[in-house]
């Protein structure tokens, strides 16, 4: 598992990267009431806003962690956005296909991420 500074977790599954938000991020957001997911089969660039998360407090974005193609989205989140709070580390938002998985090496591991959130 790798982590971004935007509090996303990245898990490699074959040749795709599965993206979710960390427990720390879910706690900061508060109760999630709505998730707007990207369209599958769209090309995205690193830093693009690809998801919107509305919590009881505010709206936040999930940024694309990498360049690539969205190949799947977790439609369960449309009906049950509270999954993000119940099990943030087990609830994925979207899966991305990227050309070169080695770019993942640049992201934080768990220890580095835990240090970031202190």
């Amino acid at each position, binding site marked *: 598992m790798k982590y971004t500074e935007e509090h996303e977790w990245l898990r490699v599954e074959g040749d795709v990267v599965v993206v979710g938000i960390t427990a720390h991020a879910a706690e900061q957001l*508060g109760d999630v009431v709505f998730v707007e997911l990207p369209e599958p089969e769209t090309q995205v660039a690193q830093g693009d806003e690809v998801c919107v998360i*509305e919590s*009881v*407090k505010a709206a936040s974005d999930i940024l694309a962690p990498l360049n690539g193609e969205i190949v799947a989205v977790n439609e369960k989140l449309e009906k049950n*956005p509270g999954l993000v*709070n119940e099990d943030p580390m087990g609830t994925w938002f979207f899966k991305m296909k990227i050309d070169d998985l080695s770019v993942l090496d640049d992201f934080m591991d768990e220890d580095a991420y835990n240090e970031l959130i202190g």
Partner: protein
Amino acid sequence: MSELIRLGLHDLHVELGGKMVPFAGYEMPVQYPMGVMKEHLHTRASAGLFDVSHMGQVILTPKADMAALVAGFESLMPVDVAGVAEGRQRYGLFTDEAGGILDDLMFANRGDHLFVVVNAACKAADIAHMQAHLADVAEVLPVTDRALLALQGPLAETALARLVPAVAAMKFMDVGVFDGAYGELWISRSGYTGEDGFEISVPEAQADAFARALLVMDEVAPIGLGARDSLRLEAGLCLYGHDIDTTTSPVEAGLTWAIQKARKAGGAREGGFPGAARILGELASGTARQRLGLRPEGRAPMREGTPVFDAAEGGRQIGVVTSGGFGPSVEAPVAMAYLPAGTTGTVWGEVRGKRHPATVSPMPFHPTSYKR
């Protein structure tokens, strides 16, 4: 930026895991570990304890006689003050000469004085306003040695009656003074959540012990300002500085229920309050815009500032959302907006560049359950 003020129950909030945030110059708990959603639902199902000590508590004592004080206070509001019996409370509004709203408040007739509770953000201005206009008839005495707690929800009576049995006999908007182990408690059967409940002014020295005595009860959980906001929004109640301010009149805001017959045209004490010409005129012939409820389709909230249009594409902007969010009890987003008077049916709120339909809806969004 001046220093945030910490209130008497600060340590208790921190001990309870409250997330402290700046609010109207005070450091206040926005939520506890339970989270806004569960805190909201707990209040609707059981009883929630809110610290609202940042709000202004003010006593007005007569310089000569009560009648002159009541008449003076009534001259600041389109509200029937003289008609409030001893031991009763009423919702009031300070208006300005242009008919806008300076603040909304609660006031109680306590026999030989009036007790007023005003919004935190307006406290200093309200006190100055009262001192300026009531100098001949009243002493304006800010109460600075008391906390203010709200206990709200269907089991609020059960919980509070264990400490103060006499509250069980109170009805909505009754007020009373109760002496006991926690000093002199000033209690009203009221609140701002749409639920039955109480607001309790407690001496600072006893506030921590009193709050803990409630919090150990199974029914009672601490509730932060986040849930207080979603509760009042579902109840269709205005938040000053958002849904009402000096640019909105009481009639535009749909607060005509707060203007009693005695102060309206043909009433015993018609007019005689700031902005009377506009407000009485609007009562007679209506307003161009009014505060209306919206129920957005789907689950995406339309928050404060969301522009509202009369068409899914093109058309024109007809208003703006003043309060909006997700209603945990409604299980859907709810909002309030100023729209052309008489707007019905579907309108469209623009969220992140996309227009989403919303239905103009009566308020409250969640039924109120006051003990009348």
